[in-house]
């Protein structure tokens, strides 16, 4: 049969293209770090050449040692003494919880424990800037009710919170709140796992300006609460995440077209420092966080 000609060389070619395609998309991939930094530079957030070079080297090694499918450069949290450089390892399933690593010098990476809700409540009392020292302990005095016999009285207890815990919790909060991805970049397979959409060719210009074409990169929360009428227009294989347009408060995103519509930049106002960029009609998109790791609680006053 003449079909035989399709065999071996074709599959090899195909595998190569598949590999290339899966690299191109999402996050700040280690391989596409330089392009991404260039695209996100409009916000003034960059890396110095030596940091860049060391990241490129060390993330490759991290990928090998931790056996990640991909490693993304997540961003940088500015501390008073030192900065935390954050990277995330991604497994096959795109929505699965990611492993987070941090480094102070961009070469030695340490794995962070997964974030728990307990951590979040614990660290919610800490305000102010990060120190840049993972072993730094914040002291927090809180009143605790102590039962002694029949009497109930309040006692001041000093709680010590490690900065590392706070770091984990803040990264998790940022990821849950403002990690975003363009619509169509991921799709849900009938079997459940969510994978990179290889046919994603970028948003069109008119779509790129709308908040509704971006999704929160997390398990949907709002989607369940939607009415049937609202769900009617959704495509189950694409619209399986929450879109940005219903974020509270309204206007917690700034959408800008830069370089004369050649680049769309979304900046989170709730977590200032998070920049998402996407060049319409290309596969280039991703986000990077460079900031103090503090939530902007003043947002309603500022709009």
């Amino acid at each position, binding site marked *: *049969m*003449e*079909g*035989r*000609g*399709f*065999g071996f060389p*074709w*599959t090899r*070619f*195909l595998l190569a293209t598949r590999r290339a395609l899966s690299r191109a998309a999402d996050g700040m991939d280690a391989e596409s770090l330089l392009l991404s930094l*260039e695209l996100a*530079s*409009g*916000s*003034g*957030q*960059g*890396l*110095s*050449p*030596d*940091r860049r070079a060391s990241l490129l080297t060390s993330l490759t090694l991290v990928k090998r040692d931790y056996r990640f499918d991909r490693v993304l450069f997540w961003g940088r949290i*500015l501390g*008073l*003494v030192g900065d935390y450089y954050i990277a995330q390892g991604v497994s096959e399933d795109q929505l699965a919880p990611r492993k987070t690593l941090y480094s102070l*010098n961009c070469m030695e990476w340490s794995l962070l424990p997964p974030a728990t809700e307990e951590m979040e409540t614990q660290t919610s009392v800490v*305000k*102010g*800037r990060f120190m840049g020292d993972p072993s730094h302990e914040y002291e927090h005095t809180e009143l605790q009710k102590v039962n002694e016999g029949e009497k109930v009285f309040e006692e001041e207890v000093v709680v010590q919170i490690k900065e590392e815990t706070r770091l984990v919790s803040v990264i998790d909060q940022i990821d849950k709140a403002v990690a975003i991805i363009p619509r169509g970049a991921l799709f849900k397979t*009938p079997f459940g796992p969510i994978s990179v959409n290889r046919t994603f060719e970028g948003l*069109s*210009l*008119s779509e790129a300006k709308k908040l509704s074409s971006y999704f929160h990169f997390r398990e949907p929360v709002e989607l369940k609460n939607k009415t049937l009428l609202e769900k009617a227009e959704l495509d189950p294989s694409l619209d399986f995440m929450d879109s940005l347009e219903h974020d509270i408060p309204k*206007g917690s995103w*700034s959408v*800008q*077209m*830069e*370089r*004369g*519509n*050649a680049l769309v930049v979304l*900046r989170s*106002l709730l977590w*200032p420092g998070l920049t998402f960029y996407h060049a319409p009609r290309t596969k280039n998109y991703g986000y990077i966080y460079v*900031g*103090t790791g503090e939530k902007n*609680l*003043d947002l309603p*006053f*500022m*709009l």
Partner: protein
Amino acid sequence: MEDSIPVNQKIEHQELGETGRPWEETVTTSQNPELGLSEALELEQGPETGLQPRSSPPRMPLSGDRTPDRPVDDLLGLRASFPPSSSQELPSTLSPLTLARQDFMAPWQSDKTTSVISEAETPPFGHLEQLSDKGGSTPHQTCQSKENTFQQTKYPLYELRDVSNHTSKQKDLRFDIFQEDDSNSNYHLDQPESGASEVAPSMLEIAIQNTKAYLLKTSSKSGLNLYDHLSEMLTTVLDKRPENAVDIIENISQDVKMEHFSKKLDTLQNENEMLPTYEIAEKQKTLFLQGNLEGADQELEDEIAEHALPNIMESAFYFEQAGVGLGTDETYRIFLALKQLTDTHSIQKCRFWGKILGLEMNYIVAEVEFREGEDEEEVEEEDVPEERDNGDREADEDDEDELPRPFYKAPQAIPKEESRTGANKYVYFVCNEPGRPWVKLPAVTPAQIVIARKIKKFFTGRLDNPIISYPPFPGNESNYLRAQIARISAGTHVSPLGFYHFGEEEGEEEEEIESGRDSFEENPDFEGIQVIDLVESLSNWVHHVQHILPQGRCNWFNPIQKSEEEEEEEDEEKEEKGEEPDDIEQEVGPPLLTPISEDLEIQNISPWTTRLSSNLIPQYAIAVLRSNLWPGAYAFSNGKKFENFYIGWGHKYSPDSYTPPVPPPVYQEYPIGPEIMEMDDPTVEEEQTFRAAQEAVQEENEETEEEEDEEDDYD
């Protein structure tokens, strides 16, 4: 059979000698039960024409009931979804599969496709024989019932699809399921619904029609539709029989598309989505062309202009070491835009101040110092509102005779600082994008700074946007932007110790200003500071921009003095004011060139972070200074050179969240005193005694008058 096939296909059959033959044989020899397919096809087309309504409903189970993981389903579902409309052209249809098949064949018009069918048709028969040999399943032998027709018509189709190495057992199993499905549906339809489906097409049917219509939708880009594309793809697959066809289906699709290289037709409407891209590119083109346009005759002027233009690329290089700054190309565009600015205005000194992010657009800010002769228009602008105020006052005075005027006077407006002094030392130009026109920001007034300290607003990127805030902001976004720029400059513009020193002569000249020396000049003897020292000690950095007092000015303005010179009426107000310690005592801030180590701490946080840009190669590293008070403000110094840069939202940092200022105190009412209280009405007794007293007085008067009269008379 031949009726149902397009003409060219018929020809194809004749041409295809060997492959075509078994087909024709099956048509003629109908004894073999295995050849039921062709027989069924033939027979059904013959006698049972016009049964179309009955034939369409059975498609329901075909597309709906099957479990999705069965490989057959894709194809069958696809076929089943063809609505009867297109099949009407064909002479007859009976079973959904024949229908579907015919339908499927109908759009195939290329020569290739037809050959595929005939080719594809052959193997099924072989297989069928095998099957019946092995399994000996009964349905094959009785082909009278409709179910069987179904099975058999379907069988080849199934085979068509499933070329690979499934065992026949598996097929048998599926076969049975098919059979059940179909028979069920058939019974349904035959008896109660034979007529009804014609009247009210089921939901599914509509859905199917919609699906097909959707598939047939022609793409506006390529002029193709998915329906044709899929059929062509399948043709190719069946034609070439690749191994693992599912893996390379994308490539096949691409190949098929590439074969269709049709001319792009003209459309009436142009796509204008990309228009802004071209627009900005056009504007930026002028930036790149400006050098050529001016020509060589202006060399003299260029020399001066060159002096004014800062070397942005150099400082951008250093800032890049620090990990801040814009991309290289954007920086260069800004560089060109600044060149344009210095070429078009008579600017003595220019600096790239930074970038303030906005919601819709950003601001690129340039700090310039004009040569002599500028700003006149602006002064006039500012005078207008003051005059208006005076007019209001005069109007008030007219009413004064009848009713008391309101005592309240707005606290005396503190005049803005002269240009070239204090907070208005520099003039700021902003633009949204390099290439767009530069807009000059108005001078800042103390009131704007004072209010700006109390509010926190995002910039939108439109200069004329009104600022809606609780303490009402006097001005629009351009004024707010200017106020924030003044605050950021005052807070974060620093230089290495010794780079600037107070100029002796100028300092004496300006002694009139109370705060003393407010001017400085570059120190020619500056020898540079070790980078390590700059990193290790904050006291090696000094502010070279004047501190802005709580009053909103850099130089103290005494509001009391002024008021004494003015109208006397304001004396009262002055006294009231005098009670506030704020205005009597002169506000003093840190003088110029104060080390930043003396800056106030933000709740135990140091206001500055210093760092060496590279720990790996410290000998060539630079000192990087980051403001914690104004996130986004950076400074670098390599010992000899330094530069300040701001990029951010233009807001001050505070560990506590923003609290709107408390509402002003409620004015106390006038204290209840004798001038407010009234006497009781006089009682009758009081009036009587009063009258008695009056009368007594009158009598006395009369007497005296008489005496006087007498005396007069005597005179």
